[in-house]
């Protein structure tokens, strides 16, 4: 009897004021996202600091570019890369670097052919745009040249000479920006 009376008394207490208090506390718990917001704010600041609206250039894995203190921005133009293995035009391999370097002449015929076609196409586009009265980019013969830092000057000279022969006379050397000068 004593047991029954105890349980009954407990039940009565639940139906009483204690039960209503528990019911009040049972509400939807909100997730605390303040710490997550903190992390995202730091990330946002970091990303805004490193944000760049310059055209994105992809560099081949086996190209280690030299450093410069120049602050001139990269422009949109065709991209010639001289890696340890290949000479690439807009990331498409044209000729093996070793094959290009051994030639007697300064001109690289394989590269000249492709560059010649590119120049013709670019000129044609520029003329068509001009005829239609659309303001567009004129052909200015700009080339972005990326080369590995250990590339011999002979190779650079050959590529530049070939560019010059196909009316790409405005050569821009692509380098890694560094505020500290390298000697």
């Amino acid at each position, binding site marked *: 009897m004593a047991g029954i009376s105890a349980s009954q008394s407990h039940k009565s207490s639940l139906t009483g004021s204690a039960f209503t208090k528990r019911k009040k506390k049972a509400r939807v718990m909100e997730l605390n996202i303040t710490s997550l917001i903190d992390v995202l704010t730091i990330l946002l600041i970091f990303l805004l600091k490193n944000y760049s609206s310059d055209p994105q250039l992809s560099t081949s894995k086996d190209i280690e570019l030299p450093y410069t203190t120049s602050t001139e921005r990269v422009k949109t133009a065709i991209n010639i890369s001289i890696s340890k293995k290949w000479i690439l035009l807009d990331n498409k391999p044209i000729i093996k670097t070793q094959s290009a370097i051994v030639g007697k002449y300064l001109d690289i015929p394989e590269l000249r052919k492709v560059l010649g076609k590119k120049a013709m196409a670019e000129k044609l586009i520029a003329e068509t745009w001009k005829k239609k009265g659309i303001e567009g980019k004129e052909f200015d013969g700009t080339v972005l040249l990326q080369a590995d830092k250990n590339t011999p000057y002979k190779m650079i000279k050959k590529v*530049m000479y070939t560019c*010059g022969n196909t009316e790409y006379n405005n050569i821009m050397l692509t380098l890694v920006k560094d505020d500290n000068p390298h000697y």
Partner: protein
Amino acid sequence: MAFRPSTKLSSLGEEHPPNLMPIMNLFLVLIPMLITMTVLVKLSVMNLSLPSGGSSGEQSTEQEKPKELENLILILSQDKGLILLGYKEGIKSSNRYTIDKERNGIHIPFKDDKFNLYALEDYIKEIKEKYEIQQSISFACDEEIKYEDLIKAMDLCRRNGLSKLGLVEIATVFIE
């Protein structure tokens, strides 16, 4: 008569955290957008003016005599080091470089098997103090010279006010 705290007061004292969900949503849109535009390695360019190319495509072997030197010409030689042609008047030899009267310039020998760019910088600063020099400089290199060495020399000249950089064929420059 026992004291019972007011329920109104307790509800007023409750903390109401700000609704951060809209900010969260904004962040989740902004962050992926910025990640795609983030550049970790910043690239820069250096403009270069080229000599007018020949149409034959053959390498020039004929030694041409130098014209009257109007600009500075820096020769990066595999054997001799740096040779800077032009502006010899009034400049005295130092322990870092020697005046080469025959070539109308100065000779900076290697230091620890590397081009002595510190000496070159000192010399450029010295001539800049004494003369009004043009902003242009041309480079002539031996074929075996590393691209990095050429860029270092170009960058040094650009930093010291010689911003118009050009390349010339070493065969067209007077050298022993």
